[in-house]
């Protein structure tokens, strides 16, 4: 069963969704298996980022913007320059993430958290978590 979570982004930044992922795993009843986090979007991405220093999150987003800055000469002009850049960022970083589930919880390192990375906010967003195993 897929768990779906809604969120409203307030700009282009990384948003901690670890608690929601843990909740989905816990409520699935799966003790050993795999959790897949998936975003049904093309201008956002999902990833694991070190959380103890919040400025590290800013660094990640800043570097993403440095790699793929919002420019006005993208060929994709149906939407906006930020949207066009967001498509590239989303493709390069990815919209799904697999996590090992063990002992009824996602296996994360001590400084790891799961982040929803918004590249075209503010927007109404959602993400899904599917847990398989036993």
């Amino acid at each position: 069963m897929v768990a779906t979570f809604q969120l409203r982004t307030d700009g282009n930044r990384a948003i901690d969704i670890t608690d929601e992922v843990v909740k989905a795993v816990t409520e699935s009843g799966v003790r050993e298996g795999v959790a897949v986090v998936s975003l049904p979007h093309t201008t956002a991405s999902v990833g694991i980022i070190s959380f103890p220093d919040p400025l590290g999150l800013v660094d990640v987003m800043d570097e993403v913007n440095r790699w793929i800055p919002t420019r006005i000469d993208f060929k994709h002009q149906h939407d906006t320059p930020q949207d066009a850049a967001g498509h590239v960022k989303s493709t390069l970083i990815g919209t799904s993430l697999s996590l090992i589930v063990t002992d009824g919880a996602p296996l994360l390192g001590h400084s790891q958290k799961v982040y929803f990375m918004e590249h075209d906010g503010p927007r109404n967003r959602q993400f899904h978590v599917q847990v398989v195993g036993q």
Partner: protein
Amino acid sequence: MTHTALRAQVESLGALIRDTTWEVEDHARRTISTPDHHALQLVLLTGCGDSFFAARAAQFAWQELTGLPCFADDALTAARYRIGDLAGGRRFRPLVVAVSNSGEVARVVEAARTAQALGNFVVAVTAAADSRLAAAADKVLPVAAPPFAAAPGVRSYAMSLLGLFHLAIRSGEVRGRYTMDEAGALRRELAALADAVDQTVAEAAPVVARLAADWGDRAQLQYLGSGPSRASAGYGAAKVLEATGISARDQDVEEFAHLEYFTADTSIPVVLTTPGDGAARSRAEEVAALLEKLGRPTVTVSDQPLTGVHLPYAAGVRELWQPLLHIVPLALLAEELMRLRGEEPGRGGRDGWADSADGSTTRSSRITVPLANS
């Protein structure tokens, strides 16, 4: 009651907006490239007649949504006085948006050709992709309404407004003034005007019928409005002129207090278009009080009543978009007066007005375009 083409056009407006708004939006999305949107520094909207009123109404949406200086000129002023030095010697390429439903009105074609000859970026908003105006433009935003019985411009005016509004929303979106979601919400506001127009037809028609019966024998009418409603005042006067031949004048609310207020004939009716939450509302209230003291027969066109006789339109629409709603009571009043007085639009294009029957009075004028380097 005879169902005139003019009335049928008014009653079809809701369906017209419903059927065309997303198609116009799609065209507006593709008319100007992203780099060209970002190069904009100044916008001039121009047209003649109804197209000038559309430009005049939409200039405020353009200014608010794009954050750029934007103004509207009639096409003669634009072509022969304004465009020659629009950039003021600075290194940017002004955007000139030239509006003409037929695309053949001489002065608008002249404004577009002049603008292009002098290096401006020209966008034509027209129903005729093969017109002289389209040929004189860098880009064309098509705004053709589905075929309908001919009448003094109602559907064509609505399509021009819709095109100008969608293009303004798009420009602000691409320029990063707001998010895609917010742009989408603005577009849905325009789409929702279809229902608001239908509601307005139902609410305004019976009031218009009573009002026309009272005013049917008047030789003059005065229309007032400010901001976007200044364009509506011009449009209302134009519809009455075209439909009935009544001498109808339009004026800004403030300017009225300085000028026409002193008119000796206090029997001339006044049509005051004043949005309830409009920036000019407080001044409209003061002028309405002056009119009452003079004994001038006055009706307000508003989403919030101001005078005893009131032509309503649907509430909850932002002032920027309201000219699309104003069409309904203003054109209905023209139609009722036309029918009561047994008139034909444009005096039937007969007798002294025969020159206008084929549109040649506005299309055949000599076009003058300066040399690019003169």
